[in-house]
């Protein structure tokens, strides 16, 4: 009887958690989709790209960011697959600190842009690079705050997430993290590479 009730509660938490997460991710996607819509309008109507004879942005720092965010996402995935056990604590910390590393990288990127003389008001291409990375980094900071929350959740429960409400919360944090990594990949490809 008790297991039946528990199963019911588990099912409820999973369903509610996933519905809410799906709706939230749809909302976030629409925000970024709007940015990419703007990008495509400018890109498709521009005679040359980058416009007005601007130089391309050196790829070193963006590529480094991409590698870092992929590493972070990969370790987050391993953390989830390992079932949040104590022995996978290092995965949590690697993922978290690489996340911080990504944000630091973005600051280096903005600094580098400033040094090579690319400012927000230098036209539409730099505008997009700055605005898109600002918005994405703001979300990464949100993601890091969620990661700290995940840390609290794990340490408070002694690295045993035995009920599915907690498990759902932990999984949601990581899914948001993967989502941001995917958005960054798109930004990297569209803004810097292509």
């Amino acid at each position, binding site marked *: 009887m008790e297991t039946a*009730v528990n199963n*019911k*509660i588990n*099912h*409820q938490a999973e*369903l*509610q958690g996933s*519905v*809410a997460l799906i*709706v*939230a991710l*749809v*909302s*976030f996607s*629409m*925000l*970024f*989709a*709007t*940015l990419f*819509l*703007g990008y495509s*309008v*400018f890109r498709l*109507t*521009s005679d040359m790209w*980058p*416009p*007005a004879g*601007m130089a391309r942005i050196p790829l070193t720092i963006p590529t480094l960011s991409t590698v870092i965010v992929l590493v972070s996402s990969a370790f987050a995935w391993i953390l989830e697959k390992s079932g949040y056990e104590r022995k996978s604590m290092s995965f949590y910390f690697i993922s978290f600190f690489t996340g911080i590393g990504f944000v630091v990288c973005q600051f280096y990127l903005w600094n580098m842009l400033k040094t090579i003389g690319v*400012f*927000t*008001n*230098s*036209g*539409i*291409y*730099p*505008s*997009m690079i*700055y*605005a898109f990375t*600002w*918005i994405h980094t703001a979300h990464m900071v949100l993601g890091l705050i969620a990661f700290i929350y995940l840390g609290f959740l794990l340490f408070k429960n002694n690295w045993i997430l035995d009920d599915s409400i907690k498990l759902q919360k932990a999984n949601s944090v990581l899914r948001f993290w993967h989502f941001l990594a995917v958005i960054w990949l798109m930004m990297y490809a569209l803004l810097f590479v292509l």
Partner: protein
Amino acid sequence: MAFFEQNIHHPPKTFLSKYIFSYDHKVIGKQFLWYGIFFLLVGGLMALMIRWALAYPGEPFPVIGQFLFPTSNGVIPPDTYAMLFTMHGTIMIFYAITPILIGAFGNFCIPLMIGARDMVFPLLNMLSFHIAAVSGFILLASLFVPLGAAAGGWTSYPTLSTLIGSPGTGQTLWSLAIFVLGVSSTMGAINYITTIITLRAPGMGYFDMPLTVWGLGLTAVLNAIFLPVLGAGVLLLIFDRVFGTTFFLAGAAATTGTGDPVLFQHVFWIFGHPEVYILILPAWGVVSDLLSFFARKPAFGAKATALSMTTITILSTLVYGHHMFTTQMSPLLTQTFMTLTMTISIPSAIFFANWLGTIWKGSIRFTSPMLFSMGVVFVFGLGGLTGLYLGTVTTDLYLHDTYFVVGHFHYTMAASVLLGSFAAVYFWMPKMFGTMMCEFWAKVHFWITMLGLNGVFMGMLFMGYAGMHRRLYNPFVYDFLNKLVPINEFTTISAIVMGFAQIIFVVNFVHAVFFKKEKASDNPWEVGTLEWTIPSPAPNYNFKEIPVVKCGPHELGNPALTNGRDFQYQTEELARG
């Protein structure tokens, strides 16, 4: 749907936990209601100022004019006029209608009508109100900054809204307020959708939900998808204004490369057209239910009504281009958008016919909620029909940017939604606050509002058809508009009458909430949806036992009723055979 465990909240003990930091969806609903009514009065006062300037240009605004505009001797100055119509639109759409219908009644009705004890995420719900409060504060603060509030129209088109068009922090604060409000509404939407999907009482399928919940649910879907689009738009606008990016600057203003002011229009209307359905869908839902409840008949074609509302929700995402026929789109595009727009009239006609079918041969009880609902049927009919002229490219090219547009969207978004909100307030008053509002004064309120409102918006349609443009400070500097002075005076007098009629509502409402001794019965309107099975006002845990649903929401006058009443609670089974 599986039956889910739901905890019973402990009743809050302190003032703060009961009224300010409440997790209870009913209290959050009431917070949104007061918030909305406050902004409704602010926005209404602004509307009166706009109307005054149009009917009596150059004359000081009576009574408070000297105090508000001392430098111009009480006359509304031209730049202030632009701020007034901008802030009137913004406040009414985002800070009055949205909080009242979606914030207040969404929060209040959804859990009660689907038989849940609260929303799925009470904390998120509380934050959603507090973030909305922050946003309202930012918006009000923007009225007091140097160079004044935003003045680029509620649509905030660049270049009116860039630093060139409106220097000063007013427009920046406006954009920030809208972004913050968007966050709040998105949080609300996540809550509504999850609640409707997972917390319906056992036995309640989607078509057993009252149509109010359908309307609110579809609104939440549109909110979750399209508010972030506007969010991105205003963020880029803020970046343009504060950090010097060049998204919406064109030509010489941008030093290299080019921005595109029209891009903002696209982004705005991708959000903006669903937004008008965000505003009207809850009102449609409420009216569909109330017509059935007070005609004492099942809602005619309730399933078709629900499905046509869903169809409209989907179609509403595909028609935004009809706001931009005059931006030199390719004719192929304008015709496509026109065709899609016209398609919306099919589902609209279906549920409109269903409304008429519902009251056809009903034994109608002309209570105040019913009067307001029938008012919605009338004004929405007019509003919908005038929409056809604006959705058609050929007529829109002439009517674009005239008062015909203003009249049209006031009929659909202001008149219908306002009357729908009043219907909802009068109807759910006993369940919200435990008292009934005075029926006599409610009916007086209805008739004066209805006449005043039609005077205002019909007048707008006529003057627009005669060619008067919107947003002009003094249209009568143009000779061809001089003949429109009398109709402008008529419209303004109607607006003043309608404005003063709202005092009746406020007095009636405040009296019923705070001073009325006589308690309402549990089911004063004799209807069978779940919220009427519990005491009035609703206890903090809503349902002591989670109800089990056995029939639909509109089983009024059904021959298979078993209890000798002409309605049946949703927890009761219909007779078989």
